[in-house]
Every structure is written in structure tokens, then in C-alpha cells.
């Protein structure tokens, strides 16, 4: 098997006559930390939706572990090991924090006791004290952590964190970053979509920048920071 875990080849997505994404070619290596940046409307979330199966690409293909998954439904991609958190937290309301994690465990293959697995993941993100609370009662930071915990509980190979730090304070950003670093250390490849530049710069081994649905630059943090195309997108001519 190659060291590429996820690969997008010529992926395009249109909404009517509007081309929201592509064509995009992008590879993610096993255990890599990839940052995706770009202004609002640049196609970042559309890209994530094409990877996770919420959208089907109009052209091109998505490969996961050398397997074409372009036509596989979203829930099957989740079971294969592609997991995500949402830009706006979407807790399963009407359920406790623990139950929120039992949902993916009901449908994904995980060794051992489901409840023990859920409890250990909640402990790893610092939500042990909130296990029996209704998800509606969580703070913004706790909701972000719950999103991550729910994405992690099924033992994913790839985690996509879609603006997991939006609206958080500096201390809270550090907390979420620590969770993501720890997760990556265990071998999970992480794609971070973020507008908080210092967090993306700190976290990512490689960063790609999107504008109007196209990938315009790729490189390390310092290369991206000095790239004239990226500077033009963010600061103008």
C-alpha cells in the first residue's frame, strides 16, 4: 500500500451553473497534518462534503486507501475510517453526552465494550464530568469537544476538523489543538480547515489554499505565508 491514505483526482462540484469546486487534485499522507485555508466561499466545506460523501462529485474521483469511494454513501465512508466534525456543532439533541458517542458506536465496528470506549474518548477530550448531561447544556467549547469526540470514537484513519476552533478563546484554542496533536500522534491523519491562521500554521505540516473553488497554493507554513497568491487572496493587490 502507498503512503497516501486519501487522494482526490480532478474532483469537481457544481450547483446549477455555478462551479463551487475544482477541478482539485489533492493527496493526504498517512498520519499527515494538513491545513486547508481560504476565504469564505472558496470551496473548503464543499471539498469536505465531497470527501465525506455528503456530496457526490460531478467529475473526478475520491480514493481512500487505494479504493475508489466516489460512489459510496457517507455512512459507509464513516465506517471505512473517514470522520468529520462540523463547522457549526451538531450535537444529537435530546441525548446525553454519552449517548451522543454511542450512536456512532452502534454502527461502526469497534473492539470491546461500547460504553467503555465512549467513556475513554470523552475522558481524552476532557468531557468526563459531563457524561450524563444533556448535550443541550454544553458550552461552546464543550460542544466543539463533543463534535471531536463523536468523530474520534469510531477509530478513524482520517479526521476532518471543519473550523473546530471558531468562536473560541486563545486558551480554548490551545485545548482543542492539544487534542488534535494527541490524536495525530496516535497515527490519525488530520485535515484542519480553519480561519484562525496562527492555529493552522502551528498545527499543519502542509497547508493548501483555496480560492473560488480552486487550489491556488500548497506548501509549508512559511512557504504559504510568503506565497504572493495567498497574500493577494487575503490582503488584495
Amino acid at each position, binding site marked *: 500500500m502507498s503512503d497516501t491514505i486519501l487522494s482526490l483526482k480532478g474532483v469537481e462540484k457544481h450547483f446549477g451553473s455555478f462551479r463551487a469546486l475544482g477541478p482539485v487534485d489533492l493527496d493526504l499522507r498517512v498520519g499527515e497534518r494538513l491545513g486547508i485555508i481560504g476565504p469564505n466561499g472558496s470551496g473548503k466545506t464543499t471539498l469536505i462534503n465531497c470527501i465525506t460523501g*455528503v456530496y457526490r462529485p460531478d467529475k473526478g474521483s475520491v480514493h481512500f486507501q487505494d479504493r475508489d469511494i466516489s460512489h459510496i454513501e457517507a*455512512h459507509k465512508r464513516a465506517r471505512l475510517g473517514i470522520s*468529520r466534525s*462540523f463547522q457549526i456543532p451538531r450535537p444529537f439533541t435530546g441525548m446525553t453526552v454519552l449517548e451522543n458517542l*454511542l450512536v456512532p458506536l*452502534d454502527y461502526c465496528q469497534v473492539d470491546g465494550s461500547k460504553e467503555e470506549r465512549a467513556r475513554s474518548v470523552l475522558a481524552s477530550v476532557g468531557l468526563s464530568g459531563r457524561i450524563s448531561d444533556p448535550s443541550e447544556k454544553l458550552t461552546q467549547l464543550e460542544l466543539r469537544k463533543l463534535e471531536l469526540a*463523536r468523530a474520534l470514537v469510531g477509530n478513524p484513519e482520517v479526521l476532518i476538523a471543519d473550523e473546530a476552533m471558531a468562536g473560541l478563546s486563545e486558551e480554548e484554542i490551545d485545548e482543542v489543538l492539544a487534542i488534535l496533536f494527541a490524536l495525530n500522534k496516535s497515527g490519525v491523519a488530520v485535515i484542519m480547515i480553519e480561519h484562525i491562521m496562527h492555529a493552522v500554521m502551528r498545527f499543519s505540516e502542509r497547508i493548501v489554499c483555496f480560492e473560488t473553488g480552486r487550489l491556488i497554493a500548497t506548501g509549508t507554513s512559511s512557504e504559504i505565508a510568503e506565497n504572493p497568491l495567498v497574500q493577494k487572496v487575503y490582503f488584495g493587490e
Partner: protein
Amino acid sequence: MRKTSILFIAGIVIVLALGFLLPWTVRNPFYFFVGYVVLQYVTIATGWNILGGYAGYINFGAAGFFGAGVYLSAFLFTTFGLPLPLCILAAAVFGAVLGLLMGYLTLRIQGVYFAIATLGLVVVLETIVHNISALGGASGMAVYGPRPPAWSPGPSQYNFTIMLVIAVAAVSLARFVEISWIGRGLRAVRASEDAAECSGVPTLRLKLLACALSGAVLAMAGAPYPFYTSFVEPVTAFSLIIGLNAIAMPLIGGTKSWAGPVLGALLLASVQQIATVTISSELNILFVGLVLIAFVAFAPGGLSDLFGRRQGRAKS
């Protein structure tokens, strides 16, 4: 086994025992005639809640499934002389298939569009029945029910006991769905379909299953109806009041748990029956409307949520 499950099973045993014993101790058959309607609505509300409450898909087509159960049972009994339990079983299977079909055609749409599509099902089925002479067409058909068996003192009592068994089966099914992976998945769908799908939940398949189970229970609720009234016609079998009650009762009782629809049906159906006898049967819909408005305004989570909050406050 969990303590709540043991209590639930004990409750069922007591209710069933009462269902078989009361007909021999209570002399007036009218109570069983009225009790049948209350239990019929317990079944309808419970069946509706599997899709409408757990998954959050508001189904305006409950009367379609109920009517399908009524007519299939009447047809199988009058034409083939099938025994009542088999008529009920056939209605459940037919309701499940109808639910699957409705789900397959409508579940890709959500919200108000789904509700309108399900309303269309009632109109389609009623029109079909109107045009089938073997089902009596618009003028309906007479059904002379089976003689009650030796363990039941009369037809009203027999119908009551049969409906009680159906209601108990429906509530047990709803509880199983609620506490199992199916219920957790459906509640996740209700909260966020995209998040559920991205968590590995096969949302479409789960919703189809909910449609089938809900359809089976709703059709099963209609199966003994021909023997209760001895006459079926499209206007009553596909009545607006059935569709309305199917939604109102779970909303009044609470949609989150199996107890909500039971509570709502017991309350509203009993009051409707009392109003029918003491005031006017025509005031039923007005009454349902007023109670529904009051609950939506003052207790949107229904009675069970109201009790839950009170208990929570008392504990703290």
C-alpha cells in the same frame, strides 16, 4: 435485564391479565365498546410516533395506513373467511410494505414537503377503495364478525381484548425501538441527518425501517375495526379525525418516549369519548384542535416532558 425492562414486562402482564379478566367482572358492555376506541388510538398514536416522534418525520397519512388495514382485514374475512388473528397479521405485513413504498418515494424530501406527500397517500388510497366494487366502493361493505370465543363473554368484550393485545404489542415494539440502536439512530436523524450519516448511521435505511414499522402498527390498528362496527366505508376508514388524532395524541403526551403517545391517547381519546356521549360527537375535532393549541403554546414537549421537568425541579 435492566430494572425498567422488568417493570415494563410486569406492567404488560398486569394489563393483559386485566384485559382478559375485566370482561367477566364488569357487566356493562358499553365500557368495552368505548375502551376499544381508546385502545385503538393508543395503537395509532404509538405507531405514528415511531416515525413522527423518534425520527421527526411528520406523517399526515396515518389514516391511509389505518384504512388499508380496515379494508384488507374486511376483504380477507368476508372473501376467504380468514380468522381474525391472520387478518391482523396480514394487515401488519401490508402496512409495512405500504410504509416501505411511501418511504422510498418520499423520504428523500423533508419537512413540509414530506408531510404533504404523506397526505397524498390518504387521498390515493381512498380513491382506489372508492373504485373497487369488491370492497363495496363508495357505499361501503357489511362485515359480520366472528362469534366471540368461549373465553370472552360477548362481541364488545372480545373486540376490546383483541385491541388491547394489539395495543400492548404496539407499545412493546415502540419501546424496543426506542431503547435499541434503531431508536438511537432515529433520534440522531431527528437532531441532524448529516451528522448522523457522517457518524456511520445508514439514515435512509433506518428511516425506511421506521416507515415500515410505523405502517405495520397503524394498519394493525385498523384490522379489527370492521368487526367492531360491522360496516366499513371509505369516509370513516380514511377519516380526517384519525390522521389528526394520530398527530395530536403524541404531541400532547410527548414524542420522546413510548409513554408519551400512550398518555396522550388515553387522555384525549377518553375525553373525546366522554364528549361524544355527553355533548356532541361533532365537537371532537374542535376539542382536539383547542387542546393541541394549548399544548403547543404552553407545553411543547408534551405531558411526559412536563412531568420530567417537574421531577427534575423537585430533585434539585
